[in-house]
């Protein structure tokens, strides 16, 4: 007998499988049924692997009957952003240039989820190569926000956020380079975590900007996200930037309470440009945290105003170099006719890439050009250090920072698509943590009058995930925002 999966927490579903209250197969059927009925309107899945999921679920159920261990996430259906390569299952990164690509290997994070017993339902929609803040840059169509189908879910992990919000799977993985987990989590009212750089392996995660790419989880609750992170975090010899220390005990931390925590409130994150309803909700959350026993400390991150420019300089430079591999020779799209190798490359890439990757390739190539390198890219790397130093100085005065995640709630599809610079400027609160590599989480802290979720961001010091989870778990325990669900689209 399947439980009601709408609004269900991943942790509760896993416990029910282990306790033989329901079968993994029942959960898979319940989610597949929801996807079949509802995802035409939302567009979060690019690929649903029903047969593979049923097979994996039956294997888990057999083990349960036989009394064998099934792992921490045994039997729970999850989804993967289509940037995680999956052996034998098409992986596109939201791009036409990778249409039909069947990876011969598996990403470390998805392999760890499978080893922990999670069931992969399919691959989730995203902005092409994770470049975007609205999911409108997907080559395979936009994702609609479950709270209002005329609005964007955020990006680039828009499918991952929307699928959790709409209860189309129990949890998902996304990636965050400048906010691509936290901003869609904020716009869809779910929990999204960008861990410390190097905490989760990048092996098998299609590269956008390698020094900034952070794989991480989405969950309905803070504990759900913690449970996923515990499984995917940890050292991986296949990623040379992987951190050697073992993963923390994030689930335990999410229930430890926040007594004694000093919360830094950076003044630069509460300036003009913020939607008044967002500001009111975040200030109310700060009051609530104060009443819960935390001490609020005003702090300053003085280089915040340079974060977006620094971020875009670095990510475009790295993207232009990472995307050089798509040349029509080894995988992906190849132009029909080319007389020379040069023409093969140029035509293949011109046909295969969408507008945003093209914009970033050209800008990235421009700032890396001989003569311009030091003025742009070199400068950005120096300012990046100043931004990281700001965080280090702030964390000498407090344990964790609390800020808004996005200056506005979800905006309408098409509203910002014509102006790339305006789209970039909306990343103001999310770009600095990846530059510094520090962990950050977004969770729901209220709704606008028109019913759109508002996100609260918690930022911790390097490897301070447990502190972040302490604060987020304590906030969630004192509020009911995470229990509110969007109506199923009819």
């Amino acid at each position: 007998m399947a439980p009601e999966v709408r609004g269900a927490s991943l942790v509760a579903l896993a416990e029910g499988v282990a306790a033989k209250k329901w079968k993994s197969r029942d959960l898979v059927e319940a989610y597949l049924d929801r996807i079949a009925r509802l995802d035409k309107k939302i567009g979060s899945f690019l690929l649903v692997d029903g047969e593979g999921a049923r097979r994996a679920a039956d294997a888990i159920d057999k083990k349960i009957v036989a009394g064998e261990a099934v792992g921490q996430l045994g039997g729970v259906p999850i989804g993967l952003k289509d940037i995680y390569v999956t052996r034998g299952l098409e992986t596109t990164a939201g791009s036409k240039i990778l249409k039909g690509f069947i990876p011969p290997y598996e990403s470390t994070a998805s392999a760890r989820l499978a080893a922990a017993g999670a069931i992969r339902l399919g691959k989730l929609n995203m902005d092409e190569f994770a470049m975007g803040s609205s999911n409108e840059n997907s080559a395979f169509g936009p994702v609609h926000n479950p709270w209002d189908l005329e609005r964007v879910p955020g990006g680039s992990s828009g499918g991952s956020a929307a699928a959790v919000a709409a209860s189309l799977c129990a949890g998902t993985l996304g990636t965050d380079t400048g906010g691509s987990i936290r901003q869609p989590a904020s716009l869809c009212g779910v929990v999204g975590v960008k861990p410390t750089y190097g905490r989760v392996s990048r092996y098998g995660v299609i590269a956008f900007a390698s020094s900034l790419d952070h794989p991480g989880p989405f969950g309905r609750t803070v504990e759900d996200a913690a449970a996923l992170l515990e499984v995917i975090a940890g050292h991986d010899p296949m990623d040379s930037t992987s951190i050697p220390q073992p993963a923390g005990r994030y689930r335990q931390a999410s229930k430890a309470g926040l007594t004694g925590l000093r919360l830094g409130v950076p003044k630069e994150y509460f300036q003009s440009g913020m939607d008044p309803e967002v500001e009111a909700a975040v200030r109310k959350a700060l009051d609530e945290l104060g009443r819960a026993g935390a001490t609020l400390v005003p702090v300053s991150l003085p280089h915040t105003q340079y974060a977006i420019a620094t971020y875009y300089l670095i990510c475009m430079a790295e993207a232009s170099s990472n995307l050089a591999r798509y040349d029509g020779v080894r995988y992906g799209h190849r132009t029909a006719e080319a007389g020379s190798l040069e023409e093969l490359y140029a035509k293949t890439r011109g046909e295969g890439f969408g507008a945003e990757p093209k914009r970033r390739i050209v800008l990235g190539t421009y700032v890396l050009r001989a003569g311009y390198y030091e003025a742009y890219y070199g400068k950005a790397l120096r300012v990046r250090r100043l931004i990281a130093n700001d965080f280090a100085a702030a964390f000498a005065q407090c344990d964790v920072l609390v800020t808004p995640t996005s200056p506005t709630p979800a905006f309408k599809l098409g509203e910002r698509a014509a102006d790339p610079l305006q789209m970039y400027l909306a990343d103001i609160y999310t770009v600095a943590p990846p530059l510094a590599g520090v962990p950050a989480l977004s969770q729901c802290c209220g709704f606008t009058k028109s019913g759109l979720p508002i996100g609260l961001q918690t930022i911790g010091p390097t490897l301070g995930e447990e502190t972040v989870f302490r604060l987020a778990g304590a906030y969630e325990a004192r509020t009911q925002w995470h229990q509110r669900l969007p109506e199923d689209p009819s």
Partner: protein
Amino acid sequence: MPRINSQEVREIAALARLRLEEAEITRLTHELDDILGYIETVKGVDTASVLPMTHAVPFDCPMRPDEPGQSLTLNEALQNAPRRRENMFEVPRIVPGTGGA
């Protein structure tokens, strides 16, 4: 004065091996000028005594023993090739000569 013109965009696209339509060049020239105008704000920061930061978390480049291990089979490595000939990726002729495509 614009920071970038369409001729420069054409040159950069050629460096990046990226064919663009005329309409794309016109639009990109406009957008890049806008974006460059914004990102130039970093030029105002004093970084005279600041070292570049290439990675957020310092790490020593790890070394592993140079031993043969399991790798992709030939067929796995070639299975996604849009054009394959025998055990090779096929590309247009690079050097002049006789035979072949």
